[in-house]
């Protein structure tokens, strides 16, 4: 009889603890709108809308907080998309009630190329700050609102401020000197379009054409698909390719070894964040760093090795 009661107690405990266990696993790094809906009532969920304040106020996913992209990636020292000072970052997280164990879902618009990579840049920034569970919403606000016609709210969410107590994970960042020292030792991935990788084109803020010596090419533009395929953009958005396709693209360039160190870069440290996020968070590569200064910083110094 006593043994039966013990089993009953264990069974009840199992069902009580089950949701907590599932919650601890976090959400899929690349999150579908359906999965977001399933988790909307999770008290640990923080949905971060990184569009401009006026766009957020005009309509956002219910419960989402609005923290514009530029707060996460200010211009600094003549470079774009830089890391905020630690104390400013702490303020930003604390003011928005984000904690290291929060389940953060970052989203914005997918309308333009910069819009699409802004999301992963913020996700990288959160990982840098030590937030453990960070996802990005595939299809962004357009899939949610335009394609799926889901509810939008105009109620501005005022998050409850709470001092952020996470430990910064600066291993996800590669600084210039480090990148220079690792040439020939690690996989350096140029995530720009082939014309930029091959030295035929450059952006105005980059001093010289070319790539970091020894880099391989894995363009970010290829990680997105129009959704639905063939439909005019007014009808929806861009979503991430499925995991199998992303894995196939990645392994063809960086190989299968998840322990191999990889450094990704682009022109200003924004575009490369998409592959950083996919490699590190979605595909399980254990040691991926983002070279934040990227070609904007690299080409300012004549001595930094460039090819071709």
């Amino acid at each position: 009889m006593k043994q039966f009661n013990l089993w009953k107690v264990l069974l009840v405990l199992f069902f009580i603890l089950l949701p907590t266990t599932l919650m601890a696993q976090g959400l899929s790094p690349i999150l579908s709108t359906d999965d977001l809906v399933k988790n909307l009532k999770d008290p640990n969920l923080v949905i971060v809308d990184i569009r401009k304040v006026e766009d957020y106020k005009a309509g956002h996913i219910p419960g989402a907080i609005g923290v514009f992209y530029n707060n996460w990636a200010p211009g600094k020292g003549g470079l774009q998309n830089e890391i905020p000072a630690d104390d400013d970052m702490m303020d930003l997280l604390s003011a928005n009630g984000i904690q290291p164990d929060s389940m953060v879902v970052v989203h914005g618009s997918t309308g333009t190329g910069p819009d699409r990579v802004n999301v992963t840049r913020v996700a990288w920034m959160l990982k840098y700050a030590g937030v453990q569970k960070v996802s990005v919403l595939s299809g962004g606000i357009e899939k949610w609102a335009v394609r799926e016609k889901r509810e939008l709210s105009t109620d501005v969410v005022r998050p409850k401020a709470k001092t952020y107590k996470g430990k910064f994970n600066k291993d996800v960042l590669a600084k210039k000197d480090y990148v220079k020292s690792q040439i020939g030792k690690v996989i350096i991935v140029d995530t720009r379009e082939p014309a930029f990788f091959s030295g035929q084109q450059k952006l105005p803020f980059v001093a010289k054409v070319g790539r970091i010596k020894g880099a391989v090419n894995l363009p970010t533009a290829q990680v997105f698909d129009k959704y639905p395929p063939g439909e005019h953009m007014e009808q929806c958005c861009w979503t991430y390719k499925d995991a199998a396709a992303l894995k196939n693209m990645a392994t063809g360039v960086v190989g299968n070894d998840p322990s191999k160190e990889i450094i990704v870069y682009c022109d200003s440290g924004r575009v490369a964040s998409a592959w950083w996020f996919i490699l590190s968070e979605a595909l399980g590569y254990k040691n991926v760093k983002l070279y934040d200064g990227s070609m904007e910083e690299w080409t300012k110094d004549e001595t930094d090795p460039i090819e071709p």
Partner: protein
Amino acid sequence: MYLGYVVDKDLLKTDPHFKMGCVLCHKGNAKEIKKEEAHKGVVKRPSDNLRSCMVCHKKITDNYAKSLHYTTAGQRNGVMARFSKEELKTFDEKVFEKSCRSCHASCGDCHVKGAPVGGISIGLIKKHKFVKKDEGKTCAFCHGGRVYPEYTGEYGGSPDVHYQKGMLCMDCHKKMEFHGDGTAYASKQDVKDRPACKNCHKPGQEAKLTAQIAHREHDGKVTCYGCHSGSAYRNCNDCHGGHSAASPGMMLGRSPRDKKTLTTLRLIPTVRDTFAPAGIKMEHFDALPNYWDTPAHNIRKRTDRTRNCDACHVDRKNFLTKEMLIKNGSKANDDLIFVPKPINR
């Protein structure tokens, strides 16, 4: 596809503005079927004539007719000290009425359609809906060269801390500033009820002692912007003569309106030959400086100056110097140079 000029047909049924048809404001002939005939006498910007709106919104339009947004008097009065009497007359006729005044905002520019700036318009704000406010499309378009991109951080640096917290223009600037209060002010400096940092941030209520001390020490000597402007803002240095140039920068110096106060200065584009095409030499050009105190809209809680006193008192970072002054600029610029003293430790 650009839909900036497509009117929402459903609005025609629900919005009282359309009760008497498009012709009430836009004129033309609604009974004609052919476009050319129907559009004869069409008025593109009906609210340029305030009487269009006055029929129903008399009090607001009466005030607005005297407001600085409508009169643009600030532009004239801000530069007039550079002119002789004769030059001012020429300026009024040839420049102010034909150029500056063309920038005045009509009611529709804020409530229906973005104002055309430099010949470019964003089109209707919300498919011809009469919107109460939409700062990101209206304020941002006219003030998009300097204020707005600095505020959102899109000019470089970080967003203004108020934007970071979700605040838009009208969270600080009240309706009265836009519509006016019925007084024809000569300049925005004369308007009494303007936003001020201290309206919300009362001195003595700082959480940290260091902030309390710093505020107490600098009170009345340095404006809030002087320490809390977060990054470089746009400075226009060679405009109006058929050529223009702008560059980011931050300059600290004496306020031209109050020489005892240190503040952020912005280079304003009136140079010696600005009005030369109109035959105006500016006989008293040196009466006014080229740098003016600017309430930079890129406020941050922490800046390199709030983090370290030495940024100003030792390194003199961003302080306007004689070497930095524009070439062939006003002699009045020299008076704005301020050299901070080292701190007695």
